[in-house]
């Protein structure tokens, strides 16, 4: 795509996204969650797609960010908006700290062992949060009341969620344009080789997880405030819903690409919302079927399929004029 066309495309998307809450105000909350889902898929893909480390535990950072922020909102005695934004920043920082600490231990595991090792993270965190009275234990936390006009809350958090998603997308886009992507792709393709070439693999792996954690720690507070009630098992550390959806959306759209997770999140979220609306009572069954269909028919995802089909479009071609045999 040429630069001018791309700019036009981004501007059109921006216009639609900004106008959406006024065009279809009835589904503002569902649309806010679309941005949350996009952040889920994008951040999961940093490790799962670009680095080849399938994590089932990323929801931990989402919950850590959410709890950190709401605790600050409730106890710091700040006015609503400073409390929220400072809380979000603290949530992101706390999530990064968790990723750094866990990374040194768990990122030493390879392949399936890493996946299994991370599976326990969200579950353990949910049990832990559910038993800690200071943060509300099993009865969870309620977020402070939004001070603005009735109905203003949904619009406000829609834009906050949108802003976090946009920042996530463009940060990753910038990072993927540089050496960092090459390094984590090298780890994905052959970690032993990367080590034999002297790459600082542990550092790259930890930093990659911290980047994913940062944005999950930022979007967690937003999701928590939209829902208004933080349950340790079903909201903050919801391994079996959010935790699994993250990787499904990334796989559906295409692992290891920038747009794949975004496309996957959009399709998955819309499908899911339609199931809830039209197949009430059967929505879980339909969702389960969808998951099976994704894994069976789109193992490489939509973008992966497109790339396989038209590799030249992704720059994979022989340079005819250059000569030289191999």
């Amino acid at each position, binding site marked *: 795509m040429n630069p001018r066309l791309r700019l036009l495309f981004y501007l059109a998307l921006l216009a639609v996204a900004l106008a959406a809450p006024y065009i279809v105000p009835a589904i503002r909350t569902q649309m806010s969650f679309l941005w949350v889902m996009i952040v889920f898929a994008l951040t999961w893909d940093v490790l799962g797609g670009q680095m080849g480390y399938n994590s089932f535990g990323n929801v931990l950072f989402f919950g850590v960010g959410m709890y950190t922020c709401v605790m600050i909102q409730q106890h710091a005695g700040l006015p609503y908006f400073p409390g929220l934004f400072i809380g979000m920043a603290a949530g992101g920082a706390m999530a990064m700290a968790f990723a750094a600490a866990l990374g040194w231990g768990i990122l030493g595991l390879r392949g399936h062992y890493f996946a299994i090792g991370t599976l326990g993270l969200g579950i353990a965190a949910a049990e832990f949060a559910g038993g800690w009275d200071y943060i509300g234990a099993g009865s969870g936390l309620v977020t402070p009341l939004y001070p603005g006009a009735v109905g203003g809350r949904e619009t406000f958090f829609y834009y906050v969620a949108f802003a976090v998603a946009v920042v996530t997308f463009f940060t990753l886009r910038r990072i993927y344009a540089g050496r960092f992507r090459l390094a984590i792709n090298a780890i994905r393709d052959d970690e032993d080789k990367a*080590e034999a070439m*002297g790459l600082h693999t542990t550092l790259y792996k930890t930093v990659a997880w911290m980047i994913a954690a940062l944005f999950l720690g930022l979007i967690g507070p937003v999701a928590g405030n939209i829902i208004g009630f933080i349950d340790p098992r079903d909201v903050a550390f919801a391994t079996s819903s959010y935790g699994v959806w993250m990787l499904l959306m990334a796989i559906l759209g295409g692992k*290891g690409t920038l747009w794949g997770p975004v496309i996957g999140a959009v399709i998955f979220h819309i499908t899911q919302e339609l199931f809830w609306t039209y197949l009430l009572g059967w929505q879980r069954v339909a969702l389960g079927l969808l998951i099976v269909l994704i894994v069976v028919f789109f193992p490489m995802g939509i973008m992966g399929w497109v790339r396989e089909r038209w590799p030249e479009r992704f720059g994979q071609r022989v340079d005819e004029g250059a000569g030289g045999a191999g």
Partner: protein
Amino acid sequence: MAILEVEHLHKAFGGVVANADVSLQVPEGKIVGLIGPNGSGKTTLFNSIVGQHPIDSGSVRFQGREISRLRVPAIARLGMLRTFQQTRIYGGMNCLENMEISTPRARPSLHSLFGRVPAAITEKAEGLLQFVGLYAKRRLLAGDLSFGQQKLLEFAMALMSEPKLLLLDEPTAGINPTLIKGLVDRLRRANEEMGISLLVIEHNMNVIMNLAEHMYCLAHGQLLAEGTPEAIRDNPLVIDAYLGAH
């Protein structure tokens, strides 16, 4: 002065002794050959030298520095690299990207972590791809190349990171005769023009006799003989254990 000195190296896996009391030296700027029958412990010796596994006893010194306790990435960063018998490249990345990530490793800064690939690096990568004849294929996924081309790419990646010593594990295995000639030529040029010392495991006697200035022969984990290529070729012990009667 020897760039690599291995002394009385011993490595056993349970009851199987893979390397027993092996000593060898690679003089700075030279090409040294290592031959021996299959299972004689050549690749294990490589793994011991580059820190793939801990050694039981003995010493490995690189540029006079004891490295037998260091691990693979640390040794690689000192300037000693190895290539693999089963060629290893980054299959999901294109050839140019494979090269661009194979730069020498200093301590990473924020800039080197998140910065873009400097133009000078890309230029150098393209130059080396030209050197091994893969320039036209630089945008193809490395995983889609033929085995021989992947070997050339792996060699180019090793050169890209400017090693002082390169350990090559059967560089010509599985490569067609025309390509072998080109590869040998490039190995020699890397040695002469870039000053890279080489330690080469090789089964192709024509190749190694041509290339190496000094050779070692392993059998059953022990050093059987060492000397000039001619001396090795005519050594009755080596003929008996490895070469066979002509």
